[in-house]
């Protein structure tokens, strides 16, 4: 329950920030116009009031949504405008230039924030410039207006302090995402702010806060993005899906035309145009598919919060390093990625990294480092979560695994195999249930979640040096590499990721084992063999293996072979949801439209046959023996 609330808060926070940035862009455009107008007329109280409202608005909202840097600067900027409003500062060219300079500075700030919510820009120079100008003016006018002015200023200061404190309270309640940022604010704040903020830093001891350090790589991407000025619009996912559907159709139609054209058309221009059309439609398809891709940034930054909270509870010091935040992934994958990642990271902070004392006793810096690194590798997204902690001790894992009967005592496993037992269902090394990762779900749930996304997770660990969890995910769930097979004159698609090999078995390789049924002798290894046709037709006759193809499926839980008539081809297919009427059918992953425009079922062989293998105790025993 509280988890969902937390998520809603994060989403809300993000949305507020996004809204603010949109609004601020507009406000700054308005204020620029106003500043320019100001230069012409010296006495226009209406205009000055408008400018003051704009600046005040910007300051208030930026503080409220947690953009301390912007609030900090606009506060100073507002002071300057206040003097103009008072009439204590006469509008001249110098003042207007300074106002415009401030405006430009804010525009840059907002732009940077649009690209990276955590970006910080140093405003010290400009703030000093403003303060310098104000001081000069004050000195010049001190004789005439000293008494009334200081009074006024005091009043103003009081009201500002109150406001700041109010804002501060609210930001404490919502636990600002950028704790590290507010600590940085302290450094650049004026004295007045420092006083107020010190209350904040007392509460959240500064050293304990993990610092989110974007890699220098980020800087280059930032500058290039500034040059591009890429604006974004929000589009509903269903519209993107509609577009994908139509573009998919377009590509199919184009293929049909192309095939026909090659056969029937003798017109060079026609053929050339058809080929051009083909190229264009492929390109459109690529673009329309890429619309679903979103950067990992927000999810990775959310992890900063998780690390902060977790390390605080456990009294650990953790530095979080994020790499490759710009890496993109399908939105639907991203949605399901967050929970497993949170779990791995909590686990890493809880079990992986030691307390400062423990770390110092083995000669490591008290501050642990957790690195989350994302990158593309082929058609996969890879996320590495690395800690420099204790590492996983294979001896302990082995002991527990034997205790819990996950493995038998005499099993011969490599260290790496042993370490990866932590993903085994029901395996949990935690001796006592901790507040952090002891929630009744183990790493097997993480593995399941990742596998549901057609991904995989492995762990590598060196004792004393730390562990690396590697999550490998398909870039999109919308497209898979599929093998189109023929069974009983119908086409079916099998995800390549499930297939280890395919072969043409001879009748000699088939043995009948009582209690198991027909089995395939695969180079000395005996595995159950089924026929796809029979599962669908719910009948069991002896399989005729003449001229048939067997597909071998293998995972750590089971291995078996499935007989189909023929393998037609291997292609990328766009996964379409099945209607809700049949979506509950087990064994179906979805459907896809093949090159001839007809839909075909995508079969999940593991789900389809997994049940029959598990139901058959004998075959399971048989499998165990073979493992």
């Amino acid at each position, binding site marked *: 329950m509280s988890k969902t609330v937390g998520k809603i808060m994060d989403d809300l926070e993000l949305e507020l920030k996004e809204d603010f940035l949109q609004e601020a862009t507009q406000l700054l455009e308005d204020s620029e116009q106003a500043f320019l107008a100001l230069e012409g007329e010296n006495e226009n109280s209406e205009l000055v009031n408008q400018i003051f409202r704009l600046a005040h608005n910007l300051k208030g909202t930026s503080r409220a949504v947690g953009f301390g840097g912007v609030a900090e600067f606009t506060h100073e900027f507002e002071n300057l405008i206040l003097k103009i409003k008072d009439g204590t500062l006469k509008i001249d060219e110098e003042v207007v230039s300074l106002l415009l300079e401030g405006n430009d500075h804010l525009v840059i700030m907002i732009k940077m924030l649009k690209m990276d919510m955590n970006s910080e820009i140093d405003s010290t120079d400009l703030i000093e410039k403003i303060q310098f100008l104000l001081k000069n003016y004050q000195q010049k006018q001190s004789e005439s207006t000293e008494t009334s002015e200081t009074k006024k200023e005091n009043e103003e200061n009081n009201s500002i302090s109150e406001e700041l404190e109010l804002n501060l309270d609210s930001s404490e309640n919502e636990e600002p995402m950028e704790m590290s940022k507010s600590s940085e604010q302290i450094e650049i704040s004026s004295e007045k702010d420092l006083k107020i903020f010190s209350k904040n830093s007392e509460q959240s001891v500064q050293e304990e806060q993990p610092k989110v350090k974007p890699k220098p790589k980020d800087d280059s991407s930032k500058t290039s993005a500034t040059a591009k000025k890429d604006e974004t619009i929000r589009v509903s996912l269903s519209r993107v899906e509609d577009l*994908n*559907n*139509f573009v*998919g*159709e377009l590509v199919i139609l184009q293929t049909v035309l192309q095939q026909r054209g090659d056969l029937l058309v003798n017109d060079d221009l026609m053929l050339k145009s058809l080929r051009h059309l083909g190229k264009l439609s492929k390109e459109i398809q690529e673009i329309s598919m890429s619309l679903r891709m979103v950067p990992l940034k927000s999810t990775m930054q959310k992890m900063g919060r998780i690390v902060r909270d977790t390390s605080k509870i456990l009294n650990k010091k953790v530095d979080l390093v994020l790499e490759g935040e710009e890496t993109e992934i399908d939105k639907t994958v991203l949605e399901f990625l967050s929970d497993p990642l949170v779990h791995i990271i909590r686990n890493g902070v809880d079990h992986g990294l030691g307390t400062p004392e423990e770390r110092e006793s083995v000669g490591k810096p008290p501050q642990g480092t957790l690195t989350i690194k994302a990158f593309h590798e082929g058609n996969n997204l890879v996320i590495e979560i690395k800690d420099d902690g204790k590492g996983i001790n294979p001896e302990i894992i082995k002991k527990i695994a034997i205790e819990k009967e996950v493995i038998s005592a005499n099993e011969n496993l490599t260290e790496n195999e042993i370490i990866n037992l932590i993903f085994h269902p029901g395996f949990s090394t935690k001796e006592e249930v901790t507040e952090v990762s002891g929630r009744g779900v183990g790493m097997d749930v993480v593995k399941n979640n990742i596998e549901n996304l057609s991904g995989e997770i492995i762990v590598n660990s060196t004792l004393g040096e730390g562990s690396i969890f590697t999550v490998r995910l398909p870039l999109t769930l919308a497209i898979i590499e599929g093998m189109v097979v023929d069974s009983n004159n*119908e*086409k079916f698609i099998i995800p390549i990721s499930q297939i280890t090999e395919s072969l043409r078995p001879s009748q000699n390789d088939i043995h009948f084992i009582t209690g198991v049924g027909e089995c395939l002798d695969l180079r000395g290894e005996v595995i159950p063999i089924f026929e796809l046709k029979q*599962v*669908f*037709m*719910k009948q069991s006759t002896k399989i005729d293996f003449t001229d048939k193809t067997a597909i071998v499926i293998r995972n750590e839980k089971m291995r078996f072979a499935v007989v189909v008539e023929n393998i037609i081809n291997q292609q990328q297919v766009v996964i*379409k*949801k*099945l*209607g*809700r*009427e*049949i979506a*509950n*059918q087990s*064994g*179906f992953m979805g*459907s896809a*439209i093949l090159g001839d*425009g*007809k*839909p*075909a*079922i995508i079969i999940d062989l593991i789900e389809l046959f997994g049940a029959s293998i598990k139901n058959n105790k004998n075959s399971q025993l048989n499998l165990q023996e073979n493992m």
Partner: protein
Amino acid sequence: MDMQKVQKILTDSINKQEVQDGESYLEFSIGQELYAVPLLIVKEVLPETELTPIPRTPKYIRGMMNLRGQVITVADLAIKLNLTKLEDTKNKVIMILQKEDIQMGVVVDIVHQVLHLTDEDITQSNGTESEISMQFVKGIHQKDPDSEVTLILDMIEALNINELL
């Protein structure tokens, strides 16, 4: 059946709709009997195409089709309503029905016309003799005592949609 005729039935109804009260229903037949469903749930009517069979589904699920890039399950209403004695006719049509986020195709023989019916035009289904189970029938329409009876179907019930979810 001729798709141009289907097109005409549907466009005519749009022109008429403004003057009529009550609700519009699309009348179609399976075998000899007349049926109707609210026009609101009929998204479109297509000529029957080749369908990809879906294994391990009830017999009335005829298969799936590609409707402009969307995969849609198609049910055979005759089988679903247990009208099994019928001969297989040619040139059937597929009505694409949509209710909220459920989309499904239904194979029927012929689409006849759009009826504009008020509550008075529809009577309750007690006492009528029909080949199909009365649980699927929401009401009955009979223009005058001599004319044929049209059964107004509850498609959600008939297609077992709630059960399937």
